């Protein structure tokens, strides 16, 4: 019996030795190929701009972008600058929508291609009007940077940045007006993340929070403190609703824990009782 088995094993094992050449090919495919089966598409913009031939100041762009919020969400070069990232000939061609580096005054329209809501608030603001009149004014890049863009935070409003053009006083007042709402937004983001980790997927609340914080932060770009103060209540109401939902979910999770703890104790109890019964002598 076992000899039959051993010989069967030999017959199967021997060919595998003959197939060793297959190994390198397979290793490449199996171990290094991405699991989606698709090759990661080469982005020519990034290949050239990160190569050694490029000027050092241009090379830093790709690193900054990679670490940025845009980079992490797969918004790449062509989405803002146009051009074809797959074809070297048309990678910087106006026919493929390439616009290159926008001029200082053109930056808001450049970013506003996607960030429509923010652009419409910015245009009517003191900053926007000053920019259009070609006076000293900030554009998007002034506060957010160009390629190393981070997720929006209230600390972008700071003395160093804002006092370049005027006294920090008015920026400070605005920051104070935003402060509590921003804090609440942060707390809710953390709360929702914790819920996710507990296994609850709070989709409706996440959407609501995103929408509310996006609208609130877009509103800031009017740099109109009175407007922000007037509408803060409206935003707070929406945030409070999300907060109530999160609290309700935590209450539900506590109930679940108690219920399953009760069942655990009941079963443990029954197990012990049956065990004791099995030990006691029958009459």
């Amino acid at each position, binding site marked *: 019996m076992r000899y039959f088995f051993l010989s069967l094993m030999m017959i199967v094992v021997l060919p595998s030795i003959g197939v060793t050449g297959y190994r390198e090919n397979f290793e490449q495919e199996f171990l290094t190929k991405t699991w989606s089966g698709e090759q990661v598409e080469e982005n020519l913009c990034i290949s050239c701009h990160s190569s050694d031939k490029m000027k050092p100041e241009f090379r830093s762009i790709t690193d900054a972008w990679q670490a940025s919020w845009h980079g992490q969400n797969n918004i790449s070069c062509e989405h803002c600058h146009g051009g074809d990232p797959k074809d070297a000939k048309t990678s910087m061609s106006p026919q493929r929508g390439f616009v290159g580096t926008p001029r200082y005054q053109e930056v808001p329209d450049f970013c506003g291609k996607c960030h429509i809501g923010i652009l419409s608030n910015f245009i009517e603001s003191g900053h926007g009007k000053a920019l259009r009149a070609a006076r000293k004014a900030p554009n998007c890049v002034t506060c957010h940077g160009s390629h190393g863009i981070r997720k929006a935070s209230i600390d972008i409003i700071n003395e160093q940045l804002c006092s370049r053009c005027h006294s920090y006083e008015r920026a400070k007042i605005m920051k104070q007006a935003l402060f509590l709402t921003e804090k609440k937004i942060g707390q809710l983001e953390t709360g929702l993340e914790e819920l996710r980790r507990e296994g609850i997927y709070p989709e409706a609340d996440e959407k609501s929070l*995103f929408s509310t914080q996006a*609208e609130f932060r877009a509103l800031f770009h009017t740099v109109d403190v009175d407007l922000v103060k007037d509408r803060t209540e409206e935003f707070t109401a929406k945030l409070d609703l999300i907060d109530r939902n999160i609290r309700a979910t935590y209450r539900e999770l506590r109930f679940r824990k108690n219920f399953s703890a009760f069942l655990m104790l009941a079963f443990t109890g*029954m197990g012990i009782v049956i065990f004791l019964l099995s030990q*006691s002598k029958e009459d």
Partner: protein
Amino acid sequence: MKRRRFLQTFLAFLGSITLFSFVNSLVRFLAAIPTRPTEAKKIFIRKNEIPSGGVRTIIYNNIPAIIINRPDKGFIAFSRECTHLGCLVEYDHGKQRLICPCHAGSYDLEGAVISGPPPKPLTAIPLKIEGENLVIG
């Protein structure tokens, strides 16, 4: 003897409360949840309150929604929640589109995605015309 009786009674007690908990959970589980449409309150709006080419934003079933009176195809209602990340879309009269202010997601007046990051069309809300009224829901 007494000990045995006690143990047996205690076992019966534990067994019954466990059984009861499970049966209770099972029955509630099977009794099912009310389906959303019957839960939501219908909204009635007079047809002539929305002129041709005009829109009205409402809240239906806790969702911000929009009713459009399309010049060519009549009334239609959608949820305003953009299917990308949840921002509320706005009606662009000039372009006859619904545009999301967050990342420029663009939908046509059938709710289909024209451009931008949204992965799915806007959720349509059932709308009926009953005489002079629009019934949403």
